[in-house]
């Protein structure tokens, strides 16, 4: 999870801001849904970076904080629909954790419009495409996430 995201490498078209979106997705539904978008040659914004996990239940809330800490402007969590979890109940854990963690995130100074949670199944390529476009546009409108900028460096000092 320690891929440091370097903002300088994003293509910046005539000075416009291109956000980095970190997506934590499960292997069985959303990852396969994103694959299907590719197989169907759909097109969506290039800002998303997917991290594949076995299940949304594997997502430690700290991953989300870490992503922001490392320069993400928005974070997306997506997995199987309720009842469809490959591991039967992992996404319920994720959902419960999400509800509790959301308030903490707000307390930690993160605009909730930067954080998205969704269910995308393996057959919902269109939903995935729409979701990425929507999240990217929304975060783009918010501008870069500056609150944590330099946090790591300061800590080191």
């Amino acid at each position, binding site marked *: *999870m*320690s*891929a440091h*995201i370097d903002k300088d*490498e*994003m*293509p910046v078209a005539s000075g416009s801001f291109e956000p980095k979106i970190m997506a934590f997705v499960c292997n*069985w*539904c959303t*990852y*396969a849904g*994103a*694959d*299907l*978008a*590719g*197989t169907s*040659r*759909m*097109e*969506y914004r*290039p800002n998303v*970076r*997917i*991290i*594949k*996990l*076995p*299940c949304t*239940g*594997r*997502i*430690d809330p700290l991953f989300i904080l870490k992503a922001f800490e490392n320069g993400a402007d928005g974070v997306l969590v997506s997995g*199987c629909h309720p*009842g*469809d*979890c*490959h*591991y*039967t*109940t*992992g996404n319920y*854990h994720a959902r419960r*954790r999400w509800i509790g963690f959301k308030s903490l995130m707000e307390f930690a100074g993160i605009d909730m419009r930067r954080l998205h949670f969704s269910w995308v*199944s*393996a*057959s919902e390529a269109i939903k995935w*495409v729409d979701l990425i476009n929507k999240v990217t546009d929304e975060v783009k409108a918010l501008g870069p996430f500056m609150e944590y900028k330099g946090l790591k460096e300061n800590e080191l000092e």
Partner: protein
Amino acid sequence: MPRIGVFVCQCGNNIAATVDTKKVAEEMARIPGVVYTCDYKFMCSSPGQETLKQAIKENNLDGIIVSACSPHMHEKTFRKASEAAGLNPYQCEITNIREQCSWVHHDNTKATGTVKSIDLTRMTIQRLKKNQPLKKIKIPVKKKALVIGGGIAGIQAALDIAEGGREVILVEKEPSIGGNMARLSETFPTMDCSQCILTPKMVEAELNENITLYTYSEVEKVDGYIGNFTVTVRRKSKYVDEERCTGCGECTEKCPFKVESAFELGLNKRKVIYTPFPQSVPNIPVIDAPNCPKIQKDKCGACAIVCGPKCIDFKMEDKLETVEVGAIVVATGYQLMPNERFGEYGYGRIKDVISGLQFERLASSSGPTGGEIRRPSDGKVPESVVFIQCVGSRDEKKGVSYCSKICCMYTAKHTKLYSHKVHGGQAYVFYMDIRSGGKRYEEFVRGAIEHDGAMYLRGRVSRVYEKNGKIIVQGADTLSGSQVEIEADMVVLATAVVSREGADSLAQRLGIGYDKHKFYNEYHPKLKPVETVTAGIYLAGSCMGPMDIPDSVAQGSAAASKVLALFSADEMAREPITSVVNKVTCNACWDCLTACPYTAIERDAIKDRKGNIVKWVARVNDGVCQGCGVCVAVKIH
């Protein structure tokens, strides 16, 4: 310092069209720890894999990354190649730069794709640096299969597995196996009688000593994993002792009560103690408890009086049976969309508007009319019949978006059957398009039109109503551009094929995926058509989507071959992606234990030399752990 190799695949032009693979490879070479990079036309090809193996050996690599297609495609291929070159296969990681990059970003200047590919590959390098070599887990396989659903697909799967020398339990919800195919009259495109080709297979399934039939039973609970499933089957009470019943039929004959027959789709009545149809397998009747006065009110009991071997037991209760199997084939089939949804066609309101399956029963020699086409209202032979296709299919607003696939063919068959049985009768078909792809299918439809005189009208029906004992069908003929009105004696609706009621809850019990129509998802639509994402569970037939008999049979056999392949070895190697406990920091909070959906975590005592317990820690059972990681995320320590 690690020694990492990065291989960037061009995938012909699939990746190279929008990603500068050379640039990606060059960029990766600058990352500390990366000692070898290259880009290649097809990494998955034999020369591609050779390049990879050679590079591992020559550069003494301890980890590799292949930036190529989705890991769901070729992760196995490259891990195998790595292993062949002496590298631990789990030191090989895939970056998905095709499905999730080159194919979804159509920027021909390659700027977008290249930047993203560089990013994604860098992420994988960081991941690889944290990897540890893993060893495959060996687990024993129980060489017994469970087939859910006793339609033609399930029967075929069971027979094939049994012929391969393995034991099979075939679970069927209804009192008899046979499924929807047992209802059909003749089958397209050969016009051979459905029961004539099905019943021998049903009997074969009953007599095969490797097959155990659990009819009138349903799967209640599924635990375990590939090779080691524990399945709880509810064996509904038949109120008849299966061991002693001889199938003489005396009880059915003497039963004084009649209710609507579900098998005959309401076209006929059956007794309360019944077998669904004469050729039922097993030929053992069941008592329909909610309708039986003896069971409900302790009145009657005629069947028990006439029963020679005294095998009727009104106190019999459902039994829960637990079976242990190594593989499961799901073949639960389809049903038709309820016609009541289509008020404009008069179903439910007009008695002589029936569904395609009901027409099958009318045309079947074992059906309520003995194979004569007589309309349900007054038993008159219809002089003209209107067939309406695509009722609910290809109709996103009122029905389903997909094509039900079998209706064009069975409607053509119906018109043939009708014209063969009612000489001088006129069949009209309202259709949207004729979809007759398949061996000898198009010729079959042409035959119905040209030889048997069915009148095909391209257009939709707007209204169906009764007038002077006739059914008036109003519709459009779009080819002549006119409105048509047909006086018919009977109307047959080719209603959409939909998933079985309760398909979703069964999928949830099995842990397999399904689409928005509740049809089960195959692992891969082209390359893994009968596998599911849950290892050891396979699919066959129309539980996956509308399917005709040849396809269902082919899939039954395909699923059986997968099961037999699994059973060919005593042990199978499992992916070693399981959770690990750090015994030093574990403080026995047992949060992981309660979170685990597989009960794979146990309490383990660490003892000193004298046998005193020093500490309790969690321990993961590698055979049971599926690697979901829920336990890892709940832990605080």
